[in-house]
């Protein structure tokens, strides 16, 4: 009869069934992840997620670090040799008026596979003339390769040693001196770290030369005050707890952030639509007559309208961010299945005696509706919310797959659609698809379990002997 009684009944149904308990536990975990997200990821995720430079030091599309469990290889993580790790030697020769800066770092490389990329960053301060920089890599077998020799263009220089054409030509020359066939495409991150033999350019046959590598950066500057620092990046084949995507983004952040977004989005849309729909259903039955007729017809019409095509069209005509999407969903779901259910339940309730009693003591129709009828509809409202949340989460994912939907906010759906568009299925980037997929499925299942437990309350006839 009262709201608290209904809530009690529902909680009981949930807590006593295995299904309900499972669902609640999973949901609690997802909530936990959401809280964790709020604490662990305090920076402005949405902005950073779409800012490529933020992720520059991550490798591109690599698997999570625990992925190596399944392969018996010791895959290299990303090694960031920071400026402080370099031994710096600088001296000024007054005679030639040249400043020499030498930066050296030692890298221990004992992994079973090659780095995915190489990059060097040179931070230079100079008065007027830009300095000349030479980058040399000395291998454990004593061979030295000059990777780069050129004048810096700016104070901060990001040198992509794997892809820059001039650098590749340098590596090519190096390989030529070794007598290796250079007609095929040269991969610096492969050959520089490969055992010297004819296979060192072959991506499939090259083997890793393990040992100590020395990176040496020589800077010749014009003024005494000029100086330089360097950073060296060996992009690994694995990264972090969830790997990275094609934009080098740490998927762990996206995954963790996806939880509160999914919950907030799904719940807000589901709660609003469920409540509105059931209220309308109750009104329809309670006030009867023309009101009933009109609401019925409108409901049936609503249910036949092509929901998804409409959303698609709206998303194309207007720019849709995730909260506007909630508004659209609500607008397109003002009437629906719940209206019908609420209506038939209200009919049953209406005939009960305590309603008559309330009427006879002079309670207004509105009062009865809100105080007596609506609370009785709570189980149906909750049951509907529970099943609507995953439906809406998937709807958002579907829009992302279609290329519509909010382009900024990292949601699980967006990650999956990015993965799909980025060819993850074709190239086997399993973590990119599976990790968000598992999270969505588990969350959806949680709601499904809860829904099943509530089914017993809402549909008491469903009982097996």
């Amino acid at each position: 009869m009262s709201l608290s009684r209904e809530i009690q009944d529902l909680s009981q149904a949930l807590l006593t069934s295995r299904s309900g308990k499972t669902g609640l536990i999973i949901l609690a975990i997802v909530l936990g992840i959401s809280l964790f997200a709020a604490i662990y990821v305090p920076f402005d995720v949405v902005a950073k997620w779409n800012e490529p430079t933020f992720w520059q030091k991550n490798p591109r599309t690599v698997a999570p670090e625990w992925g190596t469990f399944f392969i018996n290889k010791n895959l290299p993580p990303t090694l960031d040799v920071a400026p402080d790790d370099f031994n710096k030697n600088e001296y000024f020769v007054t005679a030639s008026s040249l400043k020499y800066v030498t930066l050296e770092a030692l890298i221990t490389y004992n992994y079973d596979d090659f780095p995915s990329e190489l990059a060097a960053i040179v931070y230079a301060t100079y008065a007027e003339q830009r300095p000349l920089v030479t980058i040399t890599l000395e291998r454990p077998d004593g061979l030295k390769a000059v990777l780069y020799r050129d004048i810096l263009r700016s104070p901060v220089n990001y040198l992509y040693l794997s892809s820059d054409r001039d650098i590749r030509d340098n590596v090519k020359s190096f390989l030529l001196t070794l007598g290796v066939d250079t007609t095929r495409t040269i991969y610096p991150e492969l050959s520089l770290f490969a055992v010297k033999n004819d296979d060192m350019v072959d991506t499939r046959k090259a083997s890793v030369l393990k040992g100590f590598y020395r990176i040496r950066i020589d800077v010749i500057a014009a003024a005494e005050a000029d100086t330089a620092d360097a950073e060296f990046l060996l992009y690994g084949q694995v990264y972090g707890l969830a790997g990275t995507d094609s934009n080098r983004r740490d998927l762990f952040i996206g995954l963790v952030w996806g939880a509160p977004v999914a919950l907030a989005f799904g719940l807000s849309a589901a709660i609003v639509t469920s409540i509105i729909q059931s209220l309308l259903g109750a009104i329809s039955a309670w006030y009867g007559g023309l009101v009933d007729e009109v609401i019925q017809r409108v409901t049936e019409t609503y249910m036949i309208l092509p929901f998804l095509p409409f959303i698609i069209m709206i998303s194309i005509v207007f720019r849709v961010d995730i909260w506007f999407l909630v508004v659209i969903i609500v607008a397109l779901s003002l009437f629906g299945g719940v209206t019908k259910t609420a209506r038939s339940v209200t009919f049953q309730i209406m005939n009960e005696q305590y309603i008559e009693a309330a009427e006879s003591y002079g309670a207004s129709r509105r009062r009865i509706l809100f105080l007596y009828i609506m609370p009785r509809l709570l189980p149906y409202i909750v049951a509907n919310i529970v099943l609507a949340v995953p439906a809406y989460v998937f709807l958002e994912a579907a829009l992302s797959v279609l290329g519509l939907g909010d382009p900024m906010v990292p949601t699980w759906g967006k990650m999956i659609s990015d993965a799909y568009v980025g060819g993850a299925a074709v190239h086997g980037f399993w973590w990119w698809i599976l990790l968000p997929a598992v999270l969505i499925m588990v969350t959806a299942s949680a709601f499904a379990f809860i829904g099943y437990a509530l089914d017993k309350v809402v549909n008491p006839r469903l009982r097996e002997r």
Partner: protein
Amino acid sequence: MKKYLAKRVVYLSLTLVLSIYIAIIIANAGGMIDDILSAQIKYDITTNLARSPGWAQLPEEEKLRLIEERFTSAIHAKGLDKPFLERTFIYLWDALTLNLGRSLFITSASGTKQISVIILERLPRTVLLFTTGTIAYSIVGLVIGLRMARSPGSLFDRVTTFFAIVTQTIPPWFFGIIFILLFAYQLRLVPFGGMVSVPPPSDPFNYALDILFHMALPLFTWIFSIFGSWAYITRNLTMQSSEEDFVTVARAKGLSENLIMRRYVLRPSLPPIVTSVSLSLIASWQGAIITETVFGWPGLGRLYYQAISILDAPVIIGLTVVYAYLLVITIFILDLVYGFLDPRIRVEMG
């Protein structure tokens, strides 16, 4: 019965008109349709004029003036300079009569930009996949649901229920992405997508086989994700039915269990089953858009996706109209079936 159907036809037609009208309003809210039409008219005029003799000799300003002149009178003739509301009704009429115009970019296999041709080309492919899938999961779900109802509480029942609960909230396209990863990439059992191999086999038999080969994974995915909830619904409905008094009476009459199952349990449950079917079919139609996209199946859904990605507005609008039609037709067919199955409706309305 006839009165019931007539009522439904009228009602559904009204809904159809309303849906399309709303679609048009949404589309033209950004002036989309206006722009499309003006561009098309201008294009038509220009090409026409270019064909007339002496066109090339005309000075530039003269050409432009002529185009403008014709353009304005064409606009006026079509009533496109009328106020917004009136225009929407003109568009509505075009849409209802399936006069969908030409696309901006997409062409059909035969090379034309006529939207109706483009759509007609793809429609059978969608129907092929979609209808086969629906029939398949209905049968599988029904059979399994009945098996579940026969032994409620058994291991089979509980495992299948669990499966049903988990899969019911997850749409088919989602499983599609995962299955492609698993079966196409990892296990290399089936193609990644599309309807036929490139290049397709030339003889009809192998061509048909090729299509079936490509249909395998989408079909499997479709059935996998839907049959569970379907079986569950069937199970519940038949269990409720089998507890009805008239089933006990049927048993008392000495009828065989098989006959009882068919005539006294299934038959009466069919109306609510059909209702559930119609609701889920409506959802499936929309899900088909994404599923086809994921599998690269060249049907209406994928066309939708293509049109969206290159913003080929006429196609998008045309497709929405066609979808509205398809939906309404599906529902009408279901109403027919329901009316046939449930005599209470027939007599109530007649």
